[in-house]
């Protein structure tokens, strides 16, 4: 008797939960038609959300914009959980391109193809799936080369001039390591530091499952480690070195890193957390001479950050939400973002002027060129297979650089795993 009651209760309970599960977008964000909620992270130390919120409120009388603060490292898990439970905000910030298809396939994102964005805004393609646009970018960081002018002077090495290939870079790194107490360069432990460039500059699509193009890039990194021009991967991971610390404390003369670091370095130099030295930005070294020089467009990588709209919100709010997306992508918003050191997706002259207007930012022409002129290819293709493939490539990355596996073996294993494990 008891057992059948228990079984019945369990079944009823399961049915309840399933009903809740399949009810996905429960439209719980109906709420106040004059308030827009946006999902953000670390709001106290990430001023861009509040900036955009304030700017939009200024343009729209009587509308208020609220930011829902999420934990930055678990952002996607939390937003996913909220969307599944129907309690997510109106506007869903797309923090990583890897997760766009997750939301889109689950029917969580509204079709925003009719939102007008400037023509030359970067990163818009990442949000287009099967011809329909599901989000619009407002920010796009690209990867550039930071260099410490003081250390270059000390070693007697010429500054980068925009014409470097990776071989030039490696040679300079070794000369810098020999001529100073610091390392020649600092390559952080992220997989993107090697793979991002390899994929972008070799014009490779990681979804296809061939990774031979990664080999020369890894071999170069290993050589730099062996030559003592670059901290070993094992030391970087074990000692948990921070890239801000390594470049900011002048432990390395060069560093490939994203443009978001400009604002950080400027403020850390102002507060004394980083040393006071002259530095500049150069375009990232290229694969070969076809794209080098300030007459060409260097190829680098980067992913946009954008806004999508929760498909469950009411119709009247949808219009308002779309206006917000258009605002965030506009030049006016871009200039405001640039003033606080964020790299917007739109890089018109006015925006770049504002970007370099901050005190402490480098003022030379090459730095400006590096930030403004580049072909930024997506780090993560927009597909449901991307996350799984990137995880496999991460394992490849740690295996090669930790010395556990040879380059060719690791690549062969990754190719096999992608063929077997990814649907």
């Amino acid at each position, binding site marked *: 008797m008891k057992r059948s009651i228990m079984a019945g209760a*369990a079944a009823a309970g*399961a049915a309840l939960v399933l009903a809740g*599960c399949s009810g996905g977008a429960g439209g719980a964000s109906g709420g106040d038609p004059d308030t827009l909620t946006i999902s953000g992270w670390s709001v106290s130390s990430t001023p861009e959300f509040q900036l955009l919120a304030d700017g939009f409120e200024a343009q729209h009388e009587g509308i208020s914009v609220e930011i829902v603060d999420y934990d930055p490292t678990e952002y996607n898990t939390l937003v996913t959980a909220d969307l599944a439970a129907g309690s997510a905000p109106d506007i869903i910030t797309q923090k990583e391109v890897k997760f766009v298809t997750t939301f889109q*396939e689950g029917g969580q994102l509204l079709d925003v193809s009719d939102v007008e964005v400037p023509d030359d805004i970067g990163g818009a393609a990442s949000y287009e799936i099967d011809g329909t646009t599901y989000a619009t970018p407002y920010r796009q960081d690209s990867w550039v080369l930071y260099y410490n002018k003081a250390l270059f002077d000390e070693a007697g090495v010429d500054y980068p001039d925009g014409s470097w290939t990776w071989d030039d870079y490696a040679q300079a790194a070794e000369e810098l390591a020999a001529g100073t107490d610091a390392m020649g360069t600092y390559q952080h432990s992220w997989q993107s530091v090697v793979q991002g460039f390899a994929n972008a500059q070799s014009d490779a699509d990681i979804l296809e499952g061939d990774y031979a193009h990664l080999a020369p890039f890894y071999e170069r990194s290993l050589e730099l480690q062996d030559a003592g021009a670059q901290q070993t991967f094992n030391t970087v991971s*074990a000692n948990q070195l921070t890239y801000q610390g390594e470049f900011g404390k002048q432990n390395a003369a060069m560093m490939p890193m994203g443009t978001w670091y400009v604002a950080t370095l400027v403020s850390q130099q102002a507060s004394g957390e980083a040393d006071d030295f002259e530095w500049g930005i150069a375009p990232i070294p290229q694969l070969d001479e076809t794209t080098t020089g300030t007459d060409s467009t260097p190829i680098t990588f980067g992913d946009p950050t954008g806004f999508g709209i929760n498909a469950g919100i009411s119709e009247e709010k949808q219009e308002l939400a779309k206006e917000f997306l258009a605002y965030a992508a506009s030049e006016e918003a871009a200039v405001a973002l640039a003033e606080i050191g964020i790299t917007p997706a739109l890089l018109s002259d006015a925006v770049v002027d504002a970007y370099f207007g901050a005190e402490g930012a480098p003022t030379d022409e090459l730095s400006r060129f590096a930030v403004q002129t580049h072909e930024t290819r997506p780090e993560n293709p927009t597909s449901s297979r991307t996350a799984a493939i990137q995880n496999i490539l991460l394992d490849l990355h740690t295996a090669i650089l930790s010395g556990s596996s040879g380059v060719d073996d690791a690549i062969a294993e990754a190719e096999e795993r992608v063929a077997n494990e990814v649907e």
Partner: protein
Amino acid sequence: MTSTPSAAPARPRARASRLRRRNTLIGWSFILPNFAGFALLTLVPVVVLFYMSLTDWNIFGTSNFIGLENFQRLFGDGSFRLSLVNTIYYTAMHVPLTIIVSLGLALLLNNRLRGVAFFRTAAFFPYITSIVAIALVWNLLFSPDFGPINEGLRFLGISEPPGWLTSPAWAMPAVVIISTWRDMGYYMVLFLAGLQTVPRELHEAARVDGANALQRFVNVTLPCLRPTMFFVTVMLTINSLKVFDLILVLTEGGPGQSTTVLSQFIYRKGFEENSFGYASAASVVLFALCLVVTIIQYVWNKKRTV
């Protein structure tokens, strides 16, 4: 059973069934507060989980019943097999090591030495320290080129000390060491409580009979400790099979896949790659593994008690 003067022996079965009903009622009245919450909050989601393993749920509601397809895919999945092996390897090393160390600590600190409170607290400290801090510190200590541990080993004459967390062969042993260091205070507390159930008179009697410390331990302490030992072994084994947080912050499953365990595989598939049905199937396998091991331990424990 108390012997109440029975009136008519004609209806013993009726009395027995009344007794059983009374016991059932009483038993359930004790269990109900806890069970109600447990059933609602744990049992129901777990049942849902089991159902999900038979679908291709992607968390946002669309789920199609696909039967055992997830399981078939699991057993052909190289990463799954690897994480299963890693998990078993970790458990096989961690469980005996932790039991020995924590029982040893409990025995050592089950006395009235001056300052024993301080030592017990020291043993418990690793458990209450945040995992993030533990991972950071141990990564530093185990740093192959600059860490104090390898410096010490080189000092002792070992010219090529292991790469520890950066070496695929030594990463798991390093993880086991750190994990044992962290857990020993926790299980020490449980053993300490259990040691209190060993009557002192038995020890005295054994000592008088001429038994030395080891013999007393084996013949008096261990048998009295059996319920606690069973509890500790079962909890330790299940927790080891389920280990997740510590390894994630220590190595993130690397280098390569050498420390990827089942829980991380489940997390990756579910939360990072959005294959929740598939991740649920892997959870069911983990559950089955724990269940089998627990039943084996349960049966063995029962045999010993009789």
